């Protein structure tokens, strides 16, 4: 365990050094994320000029929900995103050999290699959005509630991570996992909606339960807004475990099929 922490901190140091080398890039990408977060917040502000509630959620409750969705996304992007997508390309090109030769769990090595400091910086902005919304709502969460919120956000990150690793692992079979990025961003659109808005049975089954993109944000946000719900929290925790196990299983199955590429 300590060994992995050392490896990870070495990767982190490397990523930060790299960022310092390309400062202009860092600046532009930080702005990109900041802009996109503002687009989502502004959209909510405009919609609430014309309505009082969306599926029972008031304006600042909705801001809190969207802030939570941003927070999870920033963490995912900051810690794993680049590595996971590079993995897909490496499987195709055969460069993946490099990870097999390393002394450590392959999935860990391949998915934690690169950090994106710009996303990590913006996770502070996302956290600020959540705190601002909570203040506007006059919420006063206890330390326990905050800890639970953090745990649920962590579960969300684990589920997103697992879904991504699982989809990119398909590259072991299909050699190309292109287009997944686009699909992922489409799915995150659902994570910014309140669960109660999903009135159709088909959409509810698909996005709320089967692919828990909606629950990932709704459970932590409702925890602050409406209070703790044991069933929902346990459900999210359980599905994080299930998704993670599925990702590990599929990844290792795929690894067996990996044939490298001659060059």
């Amino acid at each position, binding site marked *: 365990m300590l060994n992995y922490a050392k490896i990870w901190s070495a990767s982190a140091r490397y990523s930060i050094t790299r960022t310092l080398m390309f400062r202009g*890039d860092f600046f*532009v990408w930080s702005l990109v994320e900041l802009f996109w977060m503002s687009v989502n917040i*502004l*959209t909510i502000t405009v*919609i609430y000029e014309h309505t*009082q509630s969306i*599926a029972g959620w008031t304006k600042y409750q909705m801001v809190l929900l969207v802030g939570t969705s941003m927070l999870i996304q920033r963490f995912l992007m900051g810690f794993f995103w680049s590595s996971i997508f590079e993995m897909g390309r490496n499987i195709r090109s055969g460069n993946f050999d490099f990870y097999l030769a390393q002394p450590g769990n392959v999935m860990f090595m391949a998915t934690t290699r690169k950090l994106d400091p710009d996303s990590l910086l913006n996770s502070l902005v996302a956290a600020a959005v959540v705190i601002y919304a909570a203040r506007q709502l006059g919420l006063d969460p206890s330390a326990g509630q905050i800890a639970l919120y953090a745990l649920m956000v962590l579960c969300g990150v684990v589920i997103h991570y697992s879904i991504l690793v699982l989809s990119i692992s398909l590259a072991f079979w299909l050699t190309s996992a292109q287009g997944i990025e686009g699909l992922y961003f489409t799915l995150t659109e659902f994570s910014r909606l309140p669960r109660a808005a999903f009135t159709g049975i088909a959409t509810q089954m698909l996005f709320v339960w089967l692919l828990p993109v909606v629950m990932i944000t709704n459970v932590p946000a409702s925890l602050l807004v409406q209070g703790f719900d044991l069933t929902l929290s346990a459900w999210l925790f359980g599905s994080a475990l299930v998704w993670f196990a599925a990702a590990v299983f599929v990844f290792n199955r795929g690894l067996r099929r990996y044939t490298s590429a001659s060059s």
Partner: protein
Amino acid sequence: MFAIFDKYRQVFLTGLQSNIVYRFNFAVRGFFSLFHLAAVVILWSAASLGGSGGLGGFSLGQTITYFVTLLILQFFISAFNEDYQISEEIRNGLINQFLLKPINYFAYRFSIFVAARLVSGLVVIVPLLIALPVLREYLAFPHDYRVLLFGLPAMAMSAVIQFSIAYCFGLLSFWFLEIQGFVILSMALETLLGGQMFPLDLLPEWAYAIARCLPFYYQMYFPAAIFTGRLTDPTLIFQGYGIQAAWVIALLLVNQLLWSRGLRRHTAVGG
């Protein structure tokens, strides 16, 4: 005179062929867009229930119709990856061949763009037809042929604006190695001010007045608003044409400037 058109007609036909190869990719992209539409329907249905029934004076059906129109327009006129293609040609030196031939690079690229959008636009109709049974109850297009008459010129100019902006970003490769950051940055602005997150008339009056002066408004929102009957006053439409035409000219001038300045910095290596 006609020889010039013939040249680009050939480019258009070749572009048509090479884009038909990607019909499957366009169709998949179209199917993904249905997910986006689902999210739009869920969000706006809930918003309309939570208000006094309407959304800024328009019904839920009219709002959904707006987003469907936007989706169709997107596949017919918006730039997909033209900026990256141009950037690639500059960085790889492929652009050198055009410098030696009697061909205008902008016109060449634009001909391919028109061909590509014709293909993607026709392909997106397939997933929309499949979704039609579900979508139908939400659709509320105006029953007035004049919206087509007014909308089509706006749509044509929007296509030029869309392409010109992408072309500008592509040409930035003369100065910068990587343009992706700029492209996604401007995409955020275009998404918001082009009306893809919400119909722009929902903005507070002062913000709407500002948006009307910006090129993004004419990239997508303007034709969509005419087609869906959100913008009906002929005076306002003709005013819009004027501003839109001004932006078309301004962007073409910027393109020309970037091209001539960029070429001075360009070094053609190899053969």
